[in-house]
């Protein structure tokens, strides 16, 4: 089903989403609301009998907007798909919000993940749950992405008994997943920084989901997150999650296979399909995890594998510097753990770092943690995120008002590139990632408006709305929505100085690549006329995207800043005419026409030519006046000369007349 265009108006008890959908704020649907979220009854005016619900997205958690269209187009009835989405006025919160409308999938299979519930039989799992979830996941994987919200509380039973996998687009990937459903690597990351990951991450979550449904409870309910991670690392996920449980025998193999900690060992979708039809179990012989002959002591704890040691270093980076610099770690890696490559990498990292410099030492610890545990997320300072989770992690940091210095440092010091380098030989699919991070670094180095960390925020979060203070409550998601939002902000007096601030410039630069970069250069100019022309040119471009006039409040605000651009013209009459034209166009709210008037190249060239001609004429007049002044002294002499000539001419004429007259009269 085609999505609805983004435009909606609040209207009493009904909120309109485009022409077709209505949301009823008075009818909340708690059964479809995610934890801490809000869902409401929605109506499709073209299909009034269809049960729909609308999910409000949270401003701090950008939805996966790039997946909306592809998932809406999947023809699978075991996956909740979006049918419409857009931004609406949400009066109860006094702001605009992005909402997604879904078909109602039925009744939630498990209402509360922490409470006990009636377990499902292994037969139902095999005949209903697994086929349904496998079909849904295959549809998602075929799009080249992952679901990242596979858990019992996100499964529904339709009216016909069919199991339906819930939505996965209303927030960042895996942000709402309880830590038990995340692989060890992902659980080490901040919830907002887990990233879309790999299909294996969904299959891991499916493994625990199956176990929970079979047990009728969460086997690790009440276990603190940190303790659970430690247990998973120390004993492996299967032991940490399933010890003391009694799963049906025939379900043990798939659950263990799906919960394998090594991604190479974990069952794939294909493995699961084969097992479902033939009960054949895939066999994979993997080398055992390297264990040290003697433990490495750090902060009173002995570590015999590299992963827990890396985690301990990441948790205490200041304390980690000493054993790293002392050479103890290299010796332990080479002699006790038998990993000479890792020891050599750490030696190089130590050589490249600056002793006594806190930033350099934090950077060193981050690199050492990556060498020790390459599969773990990028951990640096208070940052813990996978590469594709950096965007949502950055959004969360911005939303909380914290300085995202760790993320900026990680990009500037090329930690992401180092993370890729420790994953083994460079693969072709990693090249675009490397290039992308090199580009991010260039964007970060640029201090102009439209660049810097704000630009990276919007580049990495396609679903994030503009966080400019004037527009944040307008929830602007794309370039076409900027002008109407600015008009409302101008009308309500919310526009600040400058009109296009760092966030708005970065947002537009990220979302409207076709607008080019000339306007960004102009915004960075020290000349006020260039800045306002840059502002006007991008606003005119955005007005074109909005397919309508900007509105008088915004246009008149722009007009007030235009005098420096008008003063570029030399001719007073031309300036007066332009002012009158701009005033009229501003009252009509026509930004594009204002730009055409103030930046008309023909008129500017004509003004310049006429100005040069006027200056030349002024110089000529000055020369003529000087010549007149200097000729004044010589004027008596000239008068004498001229007088002499005139007197002779007059005398000659007189003489001729008298002589001729006398001769004629006398004759």
């Amino acid at each position, binding site marked *: 089903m085609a999505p609805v265009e983004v435009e909606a108006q609040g209207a009493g008890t009904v909120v309109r989403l485009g022409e077709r959908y209505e949301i009823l704020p008075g009818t909340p649907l708690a059964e479809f609301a995610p934890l801490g979220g809000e869902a409401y009854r929605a109506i499709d005016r073209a299909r009034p009998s269809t049960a729909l619900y609308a999910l409000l997205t949270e401003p701090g958690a950008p939805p996966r907007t790039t997946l909306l269209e592809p998932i809406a187009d999947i023809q699978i009835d075991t996956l909740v798909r979006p049918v419409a989405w857009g931004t609406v006025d949400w009066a109860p919160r006094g702001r605009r919000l992005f909402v997604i409308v879904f078909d109602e999938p039925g009744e939630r299979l498990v209402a509360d993940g922490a409470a006990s519930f009636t377990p499902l039989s292994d037969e139902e799992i095999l005949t209903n749950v697994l086929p349904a979830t496998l079909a849904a996941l295959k549809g998602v994987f075929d799009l080249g992405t992952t679901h990242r919200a596979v858990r019992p509380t996100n499964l529904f039973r339709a009216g016909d008994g069919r199991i339906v996998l819930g939505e996965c687009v209303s927030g960042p990937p895996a942000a709402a997943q309880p830590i038990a459903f995340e692989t060890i690597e992902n659980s080490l990351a901040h919830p907002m920084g887990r990233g879309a990951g790999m299909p294996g991450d969904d299959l891991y979550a499916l493994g625990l989901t199956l176990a929970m449904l079979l047990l009728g409870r969460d086997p690790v309910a009440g276990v603190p997150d940190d303790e659970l991670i430690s247990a998973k690392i120390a004993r492996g996920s299967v032991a940490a999650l399933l010890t003391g449980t009694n799963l049906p025998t025939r379900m043990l193999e798939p659950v263990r296979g799906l919960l394998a900690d090594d991604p190479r060992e974990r069952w794939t979708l294909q493995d699961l399909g084969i097992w479902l039809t033939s009960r054949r179990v895939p066999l994979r012989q993997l080398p055992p995890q390297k264990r040290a002959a003697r433990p490495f002591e750090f902060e009173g704890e002995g570590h015999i594998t590299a992963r827990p040691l890396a985690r301990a270093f990441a948790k205490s980076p200041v304390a980690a510097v000493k054993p790293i610099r002392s050479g103890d770690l290299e010796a332990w890696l080479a002699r006790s753990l038998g990993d000479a490559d890792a020891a050599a990498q750490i030696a190089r990292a130590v050589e490249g770092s600056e002793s006594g410099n806190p930033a350099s030492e934090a950077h060193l610890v981050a690199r050492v943690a990556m060498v020790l545990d390459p599969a773990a997320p990028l951990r640096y300072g208070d940052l813990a995120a996978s590469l594709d989770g950096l965007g949502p992690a950055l959004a969360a940091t911005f939303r909380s008002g914290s300085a995202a210095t760790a993320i900026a440092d990680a990009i500037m010091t090329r930690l992401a590139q180092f993370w890729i380098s420790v994953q083994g030989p460079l693969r072709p699919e990693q090249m675009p990632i490397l290039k992308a991070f090199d580009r991010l670094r260039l964007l970060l180095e640029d201090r102009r408006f439209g660049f810097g960390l704000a630009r990276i925020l919007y580049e990495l979060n396609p679903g994030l709305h503009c966080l400019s203070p004037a527009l944040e409550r307008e929830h602007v998601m794309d370039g076409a929505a900027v002008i109407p939002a600015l008009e409302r902000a101008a009308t309500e007096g919310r526009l600040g100085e400058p009109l296009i601030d760092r966030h708005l410039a970065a947002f537009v630069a990220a979302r409207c690549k076709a607008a080019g970069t000339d306007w960004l250069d102009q915004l960075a100019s020290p000349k006020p006329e260039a800045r306002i022309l840059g502002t006007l040119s991008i606003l005119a471009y955005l007005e074109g995207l909005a397919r309508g006039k900007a509105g008088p409040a915004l246009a008149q605000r722009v007009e007030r800043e235009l005098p420096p651009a008008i003063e570029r013209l*030399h*001719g*007073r*009459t031309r300036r007066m005419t332009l002012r009158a034209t701009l005033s009229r166009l501003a009252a009509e709210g026509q930004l594009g026409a204002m730009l055409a008037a103030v930046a008309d190249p023909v008129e500017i060239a004509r003004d310049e030519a*006429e*100005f040069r001609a*006027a*200056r030349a*004429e*002024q*110089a000529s*007049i*000055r020369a*003529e*006046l000087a010549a*007149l002044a200097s*000729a*004044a002294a010589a*004027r*008596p002499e*000239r*008068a*004498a*000369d*001229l*007088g*002499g*000539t*005139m*007197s*002779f001419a*007059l*005398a*000659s004429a*007189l*003489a*001729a007349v*008298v*002589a001729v007259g*006398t*001769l004629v009269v*006398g004759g």
Partner: protein
Amino acid sequence: MARRIGTARKAASVRGGGAVPIVLSTVLLIAALPLCAVAAAGMLPAGVAFLIDRSPRRDLARTVAATNLAGVVPPATALLHFEFSFAGALTILREPQNWLIMYGAAAIGWGLHAGMPVLAGMVLEFRARQAEQRLKARAAEIASEWGEG
């Protein structure tokens, strides 16, 4: 040799050319002696003007000569009609009215030469002032539209 012949011919030609006016003047003087007497007496102011005018273009002399000549024409015409003889010339010169006409005309020439420079100065001054006003008005007009240059 050829150059010497050419130079001798040119000298002869100059000598011949200079002689003709002198001969003609002498014949005219003898033939029109009464008229010459009247003209000599009447053109005396022009002679004085030629003597005192030391300017390169001799405007005073030329102006006085022109008007003086115009003043001599009526007595000369009267001589031709009355009796073209030396006695007739004396009769003409005895008439004070003729002296008034001849010398008055010369005086008019003198006056013209004295007055015309003043008039020319006034004209030049007027034209310069007009040009200055026009230029200043245009300069103000340009400055108003394009600013001071």
